[in-house]
């Protein structure tokens, strides 16, 4: 259903949801937007968070020998690029990883859709900020006006709120169309066929990459982990495929060189996942580039003319 709310009603919506869910949201820490527990709607600051909300579903470093039923959580302020990451990851891990699955089922993400392109993101190259998959999707399209797409599962929260009119919906659709027109497009389609195994890019990147892991840790679609036994516990920790130890085996390392590891990351994103799951493992959030201390550009990997190197 599509609803139309004003700011006051948004606060009411928050109240209703927070009665049933533990509430989290984006807050402002001295100019940085980050996810945190919130107690009231006023604390919420909408903006691009410094890291994706991945941890709500995949623990940064957790003992996997104990499974506890997760609390029901509601996370306000999730950007479309981040939310989309979960829907893409679902194809690989939902139903297989019990921790992810249980949390996924118990978490509702309240997606706030950007109405203006951000400085570096390129989500419109992946379809733009208005998503087909969502639980509750909020578009603050005018000062006091919110258009909300809500899955019917959450109908009860919207009792008494008015449904959106055709005009309102078309206003939002126009806004989204303009958004997509304004943002520079990168030709993602077909990258799996254009990208080259022996491209000089990989060596160029290897020369400057300092193996900080930021591109993995900041990515809303990177889900790889490592398992380690520490005493009685078995920890699952976020891993980085840029590190040599990621693929090291007792028989050696199939990706000994940094260049081959960097290439692997892009091939996983743009070739392997596409071929096996039908989707690119990228949402255009550009965090991997924003957080890269040596400015390795994911957009360059997409735009690069592999045939004329």
């Amino acid at each position: 259903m599509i609803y139309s709310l004003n700011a006051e009603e948004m606060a009411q919506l928050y109240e209703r949801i927070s009665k049933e869910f533990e509430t989290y949201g984006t807050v402002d820490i001295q100019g940085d937007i980050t996810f945190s527990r919130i107690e009231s709607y006023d604390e919420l600051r909408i903006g691009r968070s410094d890291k994706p909300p991945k941890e709500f579903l995949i623990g940064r470093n957790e003992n996997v020998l104990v499974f506890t039923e997760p609390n029901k959580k509601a996370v306000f302020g999730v950007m479309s690029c981040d939310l989309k990451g979960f829907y893409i990851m679902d194809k690989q891990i939902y139903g297989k990883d019990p921790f992810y699955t249980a949390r996924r089922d118990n978490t509702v993400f309240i997606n706030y859709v950007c109405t203006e392109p951000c400085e570096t993101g390129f989500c419109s190259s992946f379809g733009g900020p208005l998503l087909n998959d969502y639980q509750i999707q909020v578009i603050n399209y005018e000062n006091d006006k919110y258009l909300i797409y809500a899955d019917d599962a959450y109908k009860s929260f919207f009792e008494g709120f008015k449904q959106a009119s055709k005009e309102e919906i078309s206003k939002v659709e126009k806004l989204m169309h303009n958004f997509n027109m304004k943002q520079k497009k990168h030709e993602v389609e077909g990258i799996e066929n254009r990208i080259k195994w022996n491209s000089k890019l990989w060596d160029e990147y290897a020369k400057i990459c300092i193996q900080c892991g930021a591109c993995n840790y900041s990515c809303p679609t990177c889900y790889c982990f490592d398992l380690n036994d520490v005493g009685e516990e078995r920890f699952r920790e976020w891993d980085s495929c840029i590190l040599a130890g990621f693929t090291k085996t007792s028989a050696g390392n199939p990706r000994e060189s940094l260049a081959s590891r960097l290439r692997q990351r892009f091939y996983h994103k743009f070739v392997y996942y596409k071929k096996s799951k039908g989707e690119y493992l990228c949402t255009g959030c550009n965090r991997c580039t924003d957080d890269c201390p040596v400015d390795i550009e994911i957009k360059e990997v997409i735009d690069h003319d592999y045939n004329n190197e």
Partner: protein
Amino acid sequence: MAQISVCPYCGTGCQIVVPEKDEPFSVSGYKGSPVNNGKLCIKGYTGLNYSFSKERLTYPLFNENGNFIRISWEDAIELAANKLLKIREEFGPDSVAFQSSAKCTNEENYLMQKMARVFGTNNIDHCARSCHSPTALGLINTLGTGAATGSIKSLEGTNTFFIIGSNTTEQHPIIGSKIISEVKKGKKLIVADPRKIKLAELADIHMQFRPGTDVALLNSLMFVIVKEKLYDKEFIDSRTEGFNELREEVIKYDPIITSEITGVEPELVYEAARTYATNRPSAIFYAMGITQHIHGTENVMNVSNLALITGNLGKYGSGIFPLRGQNNVQGSSDMGALAEFYPGYIRWDSDKIEKFAKLWNSTLPKKKGLTLSEMFDKAADGEIKAIYLMGENPLITEANIARVEEGIDNLEFFIVQDIFMTLTAAKADLVLPAASSLEKEGTFTNTERRIQRIFPIYKPPGEAKPDWWIINKIGSRMNLWKEYSGPEEIFNEIREAIYNYSGATYENIYPVGKQWPINKENPDGTEILHTRSFPLGKGKLVPIKFNPPSESVDGEYDLIMTTGRNYFHWHSGTMTRLSQILEREAPEPYIEINSEDAYERKIRNGQLVNVKSRHGEIRIRAKVTNLVPKGIVFIPFHYKESRVNLLVGENLDPISKIPEFKVVAVKVMP
């Protein structure tokens, strides 16, 4: 709610955003920080697990004939105070030594040195001795201030980067990445390093010189600059003194002659000298490759010479950047946790220390203090009876550790304050459990002099307490002071003690810090030092004569070993080796050996070898690589399994007393 803190590893001082514990735990870089602009390295991302380790110390422990028994804080404080007082009564205050820590806050270091001095001794020192004591002494001698002259941000204005003795991308990754970003834009990069470090690969010029020949190399660069008149005459005339004497010395170092010593082709020296001197502003970066030598202080002064004669000081984008190792080694040195300096680098024998007598309401010791290595030496000789050590692990990190161990074993009373039961703590009579940097309040000062705040985001485990709390209690129990109410009160006393800190307040250094000097004249702090004059007035040019390192190869010990850190671990590994990811990347000690050397000795990659020096022997796995040139081997010092410092002798720089960690003659046997 999440809070801003500072990464506890290197001296870059990256600001991090740390969530509360009941939230998903992952840190991110603080985007508002002028230091790291939201970026972090792998240690920042995955290296903070140690704070939550089950191995943390959680209550005070007393060593009863080899068994540690749990005691209460009251008993621990009583015991520490009584023992120290009793030893002072019996043997005098100079029979006790205090060792502070560059991992601890400014407030804690200030309090530790105050404890020593009010107790009655200048026997206060810490690990800065083994890293940048030559910087403090060298640059204070030539410029008047022993710190980086510019800011990390100012590197945007640099046209030539000269890296000598710093593996910047591994040891100060965020500064290293900043250099990479600038070089990508077309800036020039000169690297002088015996190893083929990452920056060497990107460099316009890589001078792969022999360890310990820095003076010859720097003099040969100045030879070219003098010969071709590439120096900044106006700057030399108006801002420096001693140019003629310096010229007399450096003209002896024709690159054709020095190439015999350094192994660097004369053409490379010419090209490097011309680039550095003419493609200005130029900035020099150095770290342990310059300082950890018997001529460490002279190396630093020679770096200063080079910058001075080319006018590469006092301007945006130019300068000298001694890259500080520990997160707070700049601060711990500023606080005067050094044998020869009171807070603010006031010499122990100067009249100016009167101000501390007043501030602390105490008489001050008249005797020169012992430096770190001397403390253990004198302990072995029986002159030092007790050591109170905070947050260091000398049984791994000091040179000649066999002698350190002898010293510790000979102590009457040994107090160790740490977050873990380290190799060193295991030898203590009294172990005091401390809080980590995520669990306490205070300030750190980074490598660009930026004073930044940290906050108690988590509760310490068990009964562990912040270091300031422990020192505060023991100090007041010994009647050295009236108990402080908290870190802010100590911070405010620091502002009185150190003029360069006087303008900093808790409010104005948050959320982003400010760079000292921050005082009446510079209320907003100071990004670039020495813009108009030097604290000394004129910059002093000091001619430096080349002398060979303390050790050289002979028929038996035929390879030169140099030591250092790797990217994934930190010092004695007590923190990083608890991070599963970091440990996976570098799980065991190794020796890097050139393939030709390995071939000659019939050593295969991955084989266990014995490494023997004139001082000791260890067994370690060989990593055959051409990152090191023929004739040179490298061993990181993180690993307690094979402590490389068993091989390092006790050859000290006569000025700063830093041991020569970087040049040790060894033989490698399969």
